[in-house]
């Protein structure tokens, strides 16, 4: 589909983060190297509290409450700032705005001219064309997360950071959201934090496991994502990933 929702025009760079991070002299990671490949999905797993969200916040340029010493480099050497879209577990929709206006939140906040047509196209793309005039409170959790996805797409940023965006959804909705997000984010550089081995097995071009000692690369099936949840190689990857996670000590 020749929709402006996919493939931002410019050549996409990958990102490399290198360095140390500590909270009030408590080291969270040291000599860590995170590589996020261009135009692919990198899935990041690991025990709670190991620092996955902190990594995402560093990449997004957000306050972490700690000290980072190191570098965040893009392959094209332009800063990441202004090129990142972020989506978390909470939908973070403004309850006073309707769906249409929530999708246009970025333009509203920047005071730039809102592209109403594109917003409607994206809302239709996530299957909510009949709901654009409703407020978030009138939608289910899955629908709200689709609004958040449309809002992230509206920003049209080459880098997309996803912090457990589907964690709160029921299994069926989650599988549908994975498919929708994978399709709509095609061509973008995606870093997905997840606790769900099956999600990583379906979506990851690359799978990384974060431990207190750094990042470990986990093998991915040869078949490219998105993989059917019931394909033998997806299931095998899921099981291998699960065993790997179970063998890790807690953070």
């Amino acid at each position, binding site marked *: 589909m020749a929709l402006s929702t996919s493939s931002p025009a410019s050549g996409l760079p990958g990102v490399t983060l290198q360095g140390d991070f500590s909270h009030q002299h408590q080291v969270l990671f040291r000599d860590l190297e995170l590589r996020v490949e261009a135009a692919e999905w990198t899935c990041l797993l690991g025990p709670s509290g190991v620092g996955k969200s902190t990594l995402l916040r560093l990449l*997004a*340029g957000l306050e972490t409450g700690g000290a980072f010493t190191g570098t965040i480099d893009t392959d094209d050497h332009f800063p990441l700032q202004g090129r990142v*879209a972020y989506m978390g577990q909470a939908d*973070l929709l403004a*309850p006073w705005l309707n769906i249409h206006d929530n999708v246009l939140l970025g333009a509203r906040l*920047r005071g730039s001219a809102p592209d109403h047509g594109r917003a409607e196209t994206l809302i239709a793309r996530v299957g909510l064309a009949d709901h654009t005039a409703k407020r978030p409170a009138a939608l289910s959790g899955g629908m709200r997360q689709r609004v958040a996805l449309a809002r992230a797409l509206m920003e049209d940023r080459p880098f997309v950071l996803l912090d457990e965006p589907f964690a709160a959804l029921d299994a069926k909705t989650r599988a549908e959201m994975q498919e929708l997000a994978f399709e709509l984010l095609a061509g973008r550089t995606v870093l997905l934090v997840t606790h769900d081995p099956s999600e990583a097995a379906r979506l990851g071009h690359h799978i990384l496991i974060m431990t207190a000692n750094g990042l470990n690369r986990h093998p991915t099936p040869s078949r490219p994502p998105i993989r059917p949840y019931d394909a033998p190689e997806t299931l095998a990857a899921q099981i291998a990933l699960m065993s790997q996670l179970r063998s890790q000590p807690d953070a």
Partner: protein
Amino acid sequence: MRKGYDIAVSFVLAVGVWQLVVWATGVPHYILPGPYRVWQSFVFNFPLIMEHAQITIAEVLIGFVIGAALGMTTAMHLMVSPAARRFMLPVMVFSQAVPVFALAPILTLWLGYGIASKIVMAILIIYFPVASNFFDGLRRCDPGLLDLAQTMGASETSTLLRLRLPAALPSLGSGLRLAAVYAPIGAVIGEWVGSSQGLGYLMLLANGRAKIDLMFAALFVLALFTVALHALVGRASKRMTDWSG
């Protein structure tokens, strides 16, 4: 409609209890008049009561508008300025330890017997609830939403005006509803301390002349106005925040 019915029932009950107390105790009418006597006084003195009510209503409305505007401006200022938070906030909190009533005589001395001192009383009494409720709402904006705004490239000003402000409207509404109840108290206290007009003056005058029925009639009008103002403000703030549960 159910609400209107409930209010009517409790009103009738309250008047009934009042009448029963008057009958049961046989208390003389110059100590506690019955409801019917108060009603008669209300009808008989209607022009007089309205003349004074006008004054009080004007004081309250002007005080409400100015006090609410000052309180809202202060909250926004506290939100954007760390220096204001450091140096103004402690003063504001400390100022709450000074009972506004204690200031009434001095305000009358400074501003005279006219409506100015009463307006200032109303402003002083509502300023803090409006400022603190609104500031609280501005401050408690969802941090996730603020992070999102940052990744979207929002300026500080637009984050304040387009995220914090609308998110704080329910809290502002609570502050304004409190203000609607407090403002008449401020104005009436101002009138008690020194004035020649207004419901507070009329009540004092009636009390002094043992016209307790008139005093109650004036009090009743004051209460009615306060309830109406509260309902009006409540309705307006509900309209502004129909999205919040």
